[in-house]
């Protein structure tokens, strides 16, 4: 797989605030790479630097498949987080304008637009004014605008925000299909469950710093440790004395025990002390969602350090 985008040692300061710290990652052809992080972590800032809307203070952004200087704007499709369309124009007109700005042949664009409108349940809406569309329809039109020129690199900033579940599925399917056709896709999100379903690799960011970078499988094996939730009145000291317990969180009568990485659940269950008060006990793997919450709330129970070979 050839690399479409290479971000290396990106640093960005807003006044004295260091908002991006040494961000390094790459996006390859035919993969979905996700930038994850809570609000304000620096996802959109990273993307805006890639798009040339902001300029990095340090570091480089390269497009290895592009010979010339600068950003190959015509080969990139971009759906910004803050997005909208002109209100009083027709759907077809605005989409053709966006295609024209990308130097894409207009007759071909027209064909593709009609096909996509049909695919997204917007058939016959091409001559409707944008202001008459519902919010969801508008987002679909924006999405078409981002992909109409067959981009080789597609950058989607929070593509699912504000979408209903049906539209989310349509978007997910289309993004996967584009990936399978060889498009390199970089998407940012704070909705872990959606990303978990579709991304190949992920880059988790908090306060402008990398927290995790690697393939979804690696991240899961590395971080998705077992955790044991016990309902019952127990002494914290007793819980902490159980072997292979890394961390204990208690909330009233509920205690969550985070287990060490290579623990064997069967053996561990047998090692539970006799005095333990158990009304209910569940044992399962930590989800990406919890890792995310863990990072976002700065507990850092699970992710002390994370680095994988991508």
């Amino acid at each position, binding site marked *: 797989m050839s690399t479409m985008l290479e971000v290396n040692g990106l640093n960005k300061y807003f006044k004295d605030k260091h908002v991006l710290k040494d961000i390094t990652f790459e996006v390859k052809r035919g993969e979905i790479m996700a930038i994850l992080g809570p609000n304000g972590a620096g996802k959109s800032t990273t993307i805006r630097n890639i798009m040339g*809307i902001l300029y990095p203070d340090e570091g480089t952004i390269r497009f290895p498949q592009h010979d010339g200087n600068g950003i190959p704007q015509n080969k*990139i499709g971009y759906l910004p987080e803050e*997005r*909208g369309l002109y209100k*009083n124009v027709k759907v077809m007109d605005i989409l053709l304008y966006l295609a024209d700005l990308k130097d894409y042949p207009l007759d071909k664009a027209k064909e593709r637009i009609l096909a996509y409108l049909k695919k997204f349940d917007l058939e016959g809406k091409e001559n409707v004014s944008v202001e008459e569309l519902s919010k969801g329809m508008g987002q679909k039109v924006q999405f078409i605008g981002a992909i109409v020129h067959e981009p080789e690199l597609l950058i989607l900033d929070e593509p699912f925000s504000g979408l209903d579940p049906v539209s989310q599925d349509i978007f997910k399917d289309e993004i996967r299909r584009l990936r399978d056709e060889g498009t390199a896709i970089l998407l940012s999100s704070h909705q872990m469950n959606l990303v978990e379903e579709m991304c190949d690799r992920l880059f988790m960011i908090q306060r402008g710093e990398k927290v995790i970078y690697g393939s979804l499988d690696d991240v899961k094996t590395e971080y998705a440790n077992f955790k044991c939730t016990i309902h019952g009145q127990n002494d914290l000291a007793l819980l902490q004395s159980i072997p292979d317990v890394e961390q204990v969180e208690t909330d009233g009568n509920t205690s969550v025990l985070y287990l060490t990485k290579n623990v064997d659940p069967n053996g561990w269950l047998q090692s539970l002390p006799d005095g333990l008060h158990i009304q209910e006990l569940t044992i399962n793997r930590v989800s990406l969602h919890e890792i995310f919450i863990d990072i976002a709330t700065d507990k850092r129970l699970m992710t002390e350090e994370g680095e994988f070979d991508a």
Partner: protein
Amino acid sequence: MRNSLKVAKWEVKRNLKNKSFIIGLLLTPIIILAFAFLGNWMGGSSDDDGEEMTIYINDEIGLLAELNEFAAESGMEWTLLETDITEENVADELEDAEETTYLFLNETNLQKGVIPVYTSDDVDSHFPNQLAVLQGPILAYQMEQLGLSEEQMVALSQGVNFVGMDVDEAAGEESGEASGEAASEDDFLAKLVPAAFGGIIFMSIVFTGMAIFQSASQEKKDKIAEILLSSLKPGELMQGKIIGYFVLGLIQAAVLLVFLIPLVMYMTDIELFKYLFVPETLLYVLLALFNYLMFSAIFVGIGATIEDVTTSGNFQGFVMMLPFLPFIFIGPVVGDPSGIWAQVGTYIPFTAPGVLLLRLAILDVWPWLEIGISLVIIIVSTILFIKLAGKIFKVGILMYGKNATPGEIWKWLKA
């Protein structure tokens, strides 16, 4: 540049498909025409009242034919008739008469130098002054009686006039005088027509220039700026808008002229095109162009700082008023086109194009040095404002959700 032209094309197309723009486009000339007709109608009716007059002349020296000819040449709507009524009976005759005057021309009166005028009650008290146009033939008759030669008569009838002269203009005046009085109306039109043409373009594109503000602000409100900026540079977007709205301004001017030119040609017998295609027109259009570029740059920059016009602060409101600054100068400049106010106006970037246009339309001799300095000021400040607007636009257009404060704008300018 290619991208700018795409943006320009889009802006033109988008506006031409917009109903409110089309309505505005057609409404502007209609309003102007309505005012022209209204003014003409009101002005016309008052003219009629004053001029029609029946003048009875008790002519003992036989000048009636000559006077009649003279009055007609002067454009007076007078009817001159012979009468043999005596001064004693005039009062009775005038009692029921309207718009009627009696003159008594005889040797006795001429020698005294006083010609008695009796008017009906409704005649304006200033009317006897208007009769001064008839002085010429009468004086000529007098001189003829005195046996003066034709040369002597010409010298006398010229009289002595005190005329205020401008030192700068003295040189030009001499050559101008030779062409004589007949050419004065011609001169006036020759100056007026190109200036009016420039003025129309000037106004049209100032108004469309203000639409550019709406456009930039709307871009922010609709949050499409970032999508566009993934395809082109902020400078290209700004340039495209400026070019696009310039074309729209020209379309507005063209529509206006399409309505106006036939009307002017129909209502008057001015040979418009003869006066229009002169070098002056080029300078006026150039002034209009620079004025447009300067204000459109300012507007596109300020527009990029405002998302919601209703909550924008005083600062932006003040900037919006800038194009109307030249109007403040109209009074003083018309009063004294070479005065201090006129000169000050010529050197302030915001007012220079407008004031210069006005002055050049009024002045007989163009102050080339001032024009030169003013043009330099206009060109330099236009370039400067485009640069500054570019800086504001680049940051402002992406700042969603709030209006920029003057402090923030200042910061961007320094960056």
